């Protein structure tokens, strides 16, 4: 069991480092210079145009959404990082500890929050690019597994909570 958890911890570390480095590389490659043209917001804005339709507003929105997408990817990596304390607890033999229950809940939260936020941001992004956005298709293509996975972690947290109670009761049976 100890060897298995060590292997799992190593795999988790490798995945975390790989996804973090991919994210950092994507941020590096993201051309922030493209926004230089509209950084002098007040000088270039057309005062007669409605703010929401102005080119600057659209570009800034695109910029904000891109930053949001990067942030959410970082948030997902943060969620995956919660597997490490769970594996540590399992290695120590504390299978049904409060820490594990809390971490399972956090992972569930991260998965569901990530999926919902990504869908919202993608909707805005497609609205900005005047693309068509099909909610069900978006849900089907990439995120179908993350919502059930998030719910599964919630259920797992609840099962571990009950298991902890049973373990305590078992300890107090003489």
């Amino acid at each position, binding site marked *: 069991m100890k060897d298995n958890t060590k292997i799992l911890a190593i795999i988790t570390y490798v995945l975390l480092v790989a996804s973090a480095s991919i994210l950092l590389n994507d941020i590096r490659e993201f051309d922030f210079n493209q926004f230089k043209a509209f950084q002098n917001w007040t000088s270039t804005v057309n005062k007669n145009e409605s703010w929401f339709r102005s080119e600057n507003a659209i570009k800034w929105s695109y910029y904000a959404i891109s930053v949001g997408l990067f942030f959410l990817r970082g948030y997902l990596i943060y969620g995956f990082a919660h597997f490490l304390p769970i594996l540590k607890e399992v290695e120590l033999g504390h299978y049904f500890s409060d820490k594990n229950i809390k971490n399972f809940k956090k992972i569930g939260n991260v998965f569901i929050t990530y999926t919902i936020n990504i869908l919202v941001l993608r909707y805005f992004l497609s609205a900005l690019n005047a693309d068509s956005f099909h909610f069900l298709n978006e849900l089907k293509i990439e995120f179908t597994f993350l919502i059930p996975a998030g719910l599964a972690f919630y259920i797992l947290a609840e099962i571990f909570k009950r298991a902890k109670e049973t373990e305590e*009761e078992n300890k*107090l*049976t*003489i």
Partner: protein
Amino acid sequence: MPIIVNLDVMLTKRNMKSKELAEIIGITTANMSILKSGKAKAVRFSTLEAVCKALYCQPADILEYVED
């Protein structure tokens, strides 16, 4: 908990120490302390049998129901 464990009374009657009883029935002193303090959630029939055998008594001598 409305179930009272009167192990102390029986130990005094039999002039036996709880450590001694723990050794006879094969449980740890920590578990004996849980049993004596009434913190135990359940008692196995095997433990009850061993206690009754060691103290020459009936289960009713050890366990008592008191309404809350």
